[in-house]
């Protein structure tokens, strides 16, 4: 059996290999490529990493404690601010958990709209991730600019539907807040139709680039067994070759109705994680085409759902969905009062960082930066 424990054999091997004078560098909490306020205490032998200890909590803004103090509805806008690139999927995951807790059903149209918004969010997140990753690789902003150019288009859609660019606060328990009008759907269709062309251009810029390949291939490998044991989810897990996509596994929402594939990597390195995301975006475009074509009519909210005075009966529920960064779940314990007794977020990017040290050991500082970038973290979610 492979040793998967922290400080296991593979870690000790790196420790034993280096005997030079060591330099301890504290990267972060203010560092251009820690994607926020994350800190890595790195021990270096020359430029090679022999020890890496992540330090969290610089953005710990007490999300869970606040969630216990406000009503179920009041936590919804806070979930926007968890993973602030993907507010729509956070909303959805929270709504799923509460709907499980209260036994609410969701109208079909709302399920379709949720799928559309979640896949748009996935496009947005993965595009931005590729941009940030290339920024970490040392690009002077160009891929990031192209990514944000497309992001703005998606944000315009979100804004005209929900009223806010980033903090959508759009999902409600038992449906969605606003019904997307026909012209909104037409705009979404235009965007989706043009997205493949953008991806082609983006890939022409990056995927075949020798420097990108040299920088990312064989860097930050993660084994499938370690990834599963460490609770790694999302594209990072699939890059190791494990076919685990909650859209297929749980089949939540109306995902079983759509025809899409799950791309799998073989090496689990940075390049695989990047490519899995690119391929996932192409699948997302397919899902969006199907969802926009098959969007049924009907109500967008379950009429049984209450906005105010929402008190699920005592019990607990764990609801999860496949967010762009991995399994985002909410664990709620209700004691019958308007506020949850326990409100817990299962943050994918936090748990994906568990084996950051294992991935970085033996690589250089420059690699650590892109390994961290390829894990795809958002500190709002890591520290909550």
């Amino acid at each position, binding site marked *: 059996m492979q040793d998967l424990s922290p400080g296991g054999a593979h870690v000790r091997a790196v420790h034993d290999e280096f005997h030079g004078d060591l*330099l301890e*560098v504290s990267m972060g909490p203010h*560092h*251009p*490529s820690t994607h926020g306020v994350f800190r890595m205490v790195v021990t*270096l032998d*020359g*430029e090679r990493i022999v020890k890496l200890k992540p330090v969290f909590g610089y953005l710990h803004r007490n999300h869970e404690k606040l969630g216990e103090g406000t009503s179920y509805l009041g936590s919804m806008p806070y979930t926007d601010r968890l993973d602030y690139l993907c507010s729509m999927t956070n909303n959805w995951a929270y709504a799923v958990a509460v709907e499980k807790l209260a036994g609410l059903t969701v109208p079909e149209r709302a399920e379709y709209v949720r799928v559309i918004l979640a896949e748009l969010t996935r496009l947005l997140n993965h595009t931005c991730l590729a941009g940030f990753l*290339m*920024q*970490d*690789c*040392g*690009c*002077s*902003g*160009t891929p990031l*600019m*192209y990514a944000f*150019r497309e992001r703005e288009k998606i944000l315009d859609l979100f804004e005209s539907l929900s009223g806010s660019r980033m903090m959508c606060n759009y999902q409600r328990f038992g449906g969605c807040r606003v019904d997307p009008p026909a012209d909104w759907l037409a705009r979404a269709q235009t965007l989706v139709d043009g997205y493949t062309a953008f991806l082609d251009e983006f890939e022409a*810029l990056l*995927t*075949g*680039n*020798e*420097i*990108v*390949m*040299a*920088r990312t*291939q*064989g860097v930050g490998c993660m084994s499938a067994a370690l990834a599963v044991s460490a609770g790694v989810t999302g594209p990072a897990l699939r890059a190791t070759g494990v*076919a685990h*996509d909650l859209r*297929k596994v749980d089949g939540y929402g109306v995902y079983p109705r759509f025809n899409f*594939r*799950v*791309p*799998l*990597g*073989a090496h689990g390195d940075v*390049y*695989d994680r990047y*490519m*899995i995301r690119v*391929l996932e975006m192409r699948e997302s475009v397919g899902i969006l085409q199907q969802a926009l074509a098959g969007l049924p009519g009907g109500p967008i909210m379950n009429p049984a759902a209450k906005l105010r005075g929402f008190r699920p009966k005592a019990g607990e529920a764990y609801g999860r969905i496949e967010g762009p960064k991995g399994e985002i779940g909410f664990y709620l314990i209700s004691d019958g009062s308007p506020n949850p007794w326990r409100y817990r977020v299962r943050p994918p990017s936090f748990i994906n960082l568990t084996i950051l040290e294992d991935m970085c050991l033996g690589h*250089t*500082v*420059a*690699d650590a*930066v892109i390994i961290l970038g390829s894990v795809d973290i958002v500190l709002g979610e890591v520290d909550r």
Partner: protein
Amino acid sequence: MIATLPPAESWLERFPLLVRDWITGHLPESLGWLAVSLLAIVVILAAFGLLFAYLTLAERKILGRIQNRPGPNRTGWFGLLQPFADGIKAVTKEDVVPREADAVLHFLAPVLLVAMSLLGLAVIPFGRHLLAANLEAGVLYFFAAGAATELAVFMAGWASHNKYSLLAAMRALAQLISYELPLLLSVVPVVMLAGSLSTTHIVDAQGGWTFGWIPHWHVLTPWGFAGFVMFMIAALAESNRSPFDLPEAESELIAGHLTEYSGFKYALFFMAEYFGMCGLSAMAVTLFLGGWQAPCAFLEFIPSYVWFTAKLLTLLLGFIWIRATLPRLRMDQLTRLAWKFLVPLTLLNLANAAFWSLSAGWSGPMHWVRWAIALTVVVGPFLLLGRALTAGVAPRTYRYA
């Protein structure tokens, strides 16, 4: 009227000389040599200072356009005053010297860097009659002065007493050692064929045209083209430009050796980087692109310094374009590229140039044989070494669940 005069004698061509003579004419004979030298220094400082200022602006605007945005356009007309605003700010900014830093070296590093990167400009022939110092060993002098710049980067990194700066200093040294060699080796064929280390001789050797429109620039020969490309790659590394900007790698080492520099000292570093870039580009123009020579005979009426400037700017735009496109290499990849790829190729290129020189007399069908052999010597090793360099790195195919 212009057409009747030999181009070297035209009024436009001689204009800088006329101005110089007019100024020195006011001075006593004994001070003339001093005035000429000082004037050359002032002109180079002013011209390259201005070039530096507008190069930063051009870089920001071109980067902007590549990234689908306008770039600075609100300070002055089209943003043309932006560099001056930056300059005023840099000069008036507080100068911070970390308490633990070596204050003397911390101060010396940027000064040395700017001085060294300016020294090289003395031997560049900017035009037919425009040359500050006509040294017999001009090329040697240029690279000797250029090598000192990396020393200054190391000084800056060492003196700052900052871990990131120290890492940057180590990177700078490794980069210096790796890239001096291909840089020099790619120049040797030029010197060999021109038979001189003097930059004016090298430019003169590239004069003349075949059929009046194919210039005899080195870049248009197989060995010259290969040498030019390798020289430019090494020049990118020497001037710490993307994709070889490892010492100041922003996403890894904050700002590398510049981390602890503020205000005017930081601006000096910035200036030195651009001077270095200009110097190496000017050298590339001199060595491979025919210096100030016009590309066709009928375009010779345009003054030589205009041609030189145009070629220089083209190369500088190339620097910016590459910066906008490419990510950065890793340290080990950078050195591997130098030692396993550039150095063997430059050595082969030396042999290729020797062959080219020996086969200069071949004519008729042998002329084509000469080209074929020279091209094979360029392309074959490039493909072989390229494959070896990128071993294990390839696009992948993915399976789906």
